[in-house]
């Protein structure tokens, strides 16, 4: 297994539900555990934090064994040093913000265990204005920032975020995500981020763990995992698509366009107000990709990428999902009729056409 930052392998049996999850993260960074409700996310979180004891399993964080049912090791929640941020914040109503923040800090008695200071956390999360406030007067976004700060001040060896944005509206989510990215960049601790939101998955994940009906159906790097055709149904039927890590290669001010580079090619999109060199993740939805057998001429579409078909979905529905290697895995969703008319099959060279306005999501990466 090597020295992973995080090793998890747990099984838990409920009367009518089986959880069997295993994944690893090699370095600090964000591991997004993604799944629909009922996939077992909450159970997994409770097992990680020590609130539920699994039937069998092993959890190792940074070389420290938190749970090993074979060895009989099972640290209680207060000994695990996992910073757990709950979906609903769970701030203590009888304390002001500052005292909420220091609740866990004061309980790390040994100085050597304190790896982060109060001031660092306050700066990192922008909490200085809130310290004297009562918890009941905070907005949803402020509450979650305080909750994250409170967890961080326990100097955790793992930060566990359980759908921290689920109860927030869109503007508040947008406001809080940069803080989570700062945690990733400035703290050398692994972060496990539970969500069922695809945008959060694409924006935050370094490593992805896909859960379905209590099982890990896939885990690994973001791009590779999301490009797996057999996971199409899980990664979102409506929004199925490929994720590209790109960087801004230049702007064309005359026509209001921006060029994006990725390993193996270039994409042209509508002008983005971000500087040259910025790295981003973009999503190309399968339904926005059309296929041609010959390189089209005299066509309005600016992005034409060539590549071989790797894989095609089987099934009897009217549509077929096709995975094409254009230097990166790219998905196209076409009708079964077109598949037959063009005699599409794995190994065949095709041209993928993507309209420049079709990139619906641009997410800044630091």
């Amino acid at each position, binding site marked *: 297994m090597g020295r992973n930052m995080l090793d998890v392998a747990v099984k838990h049996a409920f009367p009518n539900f089986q959880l069997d999850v295993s994944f690893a993260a090699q370095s600090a960074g964000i591991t997004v555990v993604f799944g629909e409700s009922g996939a077992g996310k909450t159970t997994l979180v409770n097992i990680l*934090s*020590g*609130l539920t004891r699994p039937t069998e399993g092993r959890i190792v964080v940074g070389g420290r064994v938190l749970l090993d049912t074979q060895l009989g090791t099972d640290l*209680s*929640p*207060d*000994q*695990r*040093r*996992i*910073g*757990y941020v*709950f979906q*609903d914040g*769970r701030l*203590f*109503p*009888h304390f002001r913000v500052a005292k909420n923040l220091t*609740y*866990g800090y004061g*309980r*790390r008695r040994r100085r050597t265990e304190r790896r982060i200071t109060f001031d660092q956390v306050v700066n990192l999360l922008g909490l200085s204005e809130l310290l004297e406030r*009562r*918890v*009941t007067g905070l907005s949803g976004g402020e509450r979650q920032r305080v909750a994250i700060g*409170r*967890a961080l001040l*326990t100097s955790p060896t793992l930060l566990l975020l359980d759908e921290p944005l689920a109860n927030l509206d869109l503007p508040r989510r947008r406001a809080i995500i940069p803080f989570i990215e700062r945690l990733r960049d400035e703290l050398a601790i692994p972060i496990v981020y539970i969500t069922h939101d695809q945008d959060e998955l694409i924006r935050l994940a370094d490593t992805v763990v896909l859960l379905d009906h209590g099982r890990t159906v896939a885990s690994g790097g973001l791009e590779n995992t999301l490009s797996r055709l057999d996971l199409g149904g899980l990664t979102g039927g409506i929004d199925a698509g490929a994720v590209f890590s790109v960087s801004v290669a230049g702007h064309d001010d005359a026509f209001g366009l921006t060029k994006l580079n990725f390993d193996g090619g270039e994409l042209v999109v509508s002008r983005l107000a971000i500087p040259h060199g910025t790295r981003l993740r973009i999503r190309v939805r399968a339904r926005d990709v059309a296929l041609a057998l010959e390189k089209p001429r005299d066509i309005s579409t600016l992005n034409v990428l060539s590549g071989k078909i790797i894989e095609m979905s089987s099934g009897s529905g009217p549509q077929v999902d096709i995975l094409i290697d254009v230097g990166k895995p790219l998905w196209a969703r076409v009708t079964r009729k077109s598949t037959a008319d063009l005699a599409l099959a794995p190994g065949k060279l095709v041209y993928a056409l993507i309209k420049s306005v079709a990139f619906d999501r641009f997410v800044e990466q630091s």
Partner: protein
Amino acid sequence: MSWWLSPNEAEALLLSLRVAFWSVLIGLPFGIAAAWLLARRTFFGKTLFDSLVHLPLVVPPVVVGYVLLITLGRKGFIGGWLYDTFGLSLIFTWRGAAIAAGVMSFPLMVRAIRLSFEAIDQRLEVAARTLGASRIDVFFTITLPLALPGILAGIVLAFARALGEFGATITFVSNIPGETRTLPLALFTFTQTPGGEDSAIRLVVISLALAIAALIASEMIARRVRRQIGS
């Protein structure tokens, strides 16, 4: 008629306050423990335990007084042991009156505290555990402070009930001036004595004032604490 208390009446009032104070102080830890058990635990015999706690509320106070007399009296199995070991006698003393008042007011105290334990969001306690607090730590830093409105209400109710205790007290520790003659006992005595009407009226007014003050205080404290913990 003078509104000033005679020395005898003042003595009864002070004695009552002292008895009620100690009855609440001694009863409180047990009240919190019983309320916590009833609110948070399931165990064999819980229903029986619940009934026992509530018994003083429904049993004639004389019965409670008599049970105390035969268990805590000098020949009783607890009272005898207390006397032989510590030389402590409860019968016919103000301490015994405090015990009687404590037992009689116990159910009221437990009910108020139990309700507030039940109203606490237990997910907050779980959160505290993940922040590194042990169970006992969580109890004292999260559970108890959040239950404070109920605890204060319980204290005030129990205090008011203890001030008014009559039946169990007179049965257990009798009606000794200066030792066990509390406000209600003094009032009873005055009503039985020719010419005691003025004294009786004064004690009635005081009893009413104390009871009303206690209820108002309880409500004010609860409101204030509720605002503070924001629930």
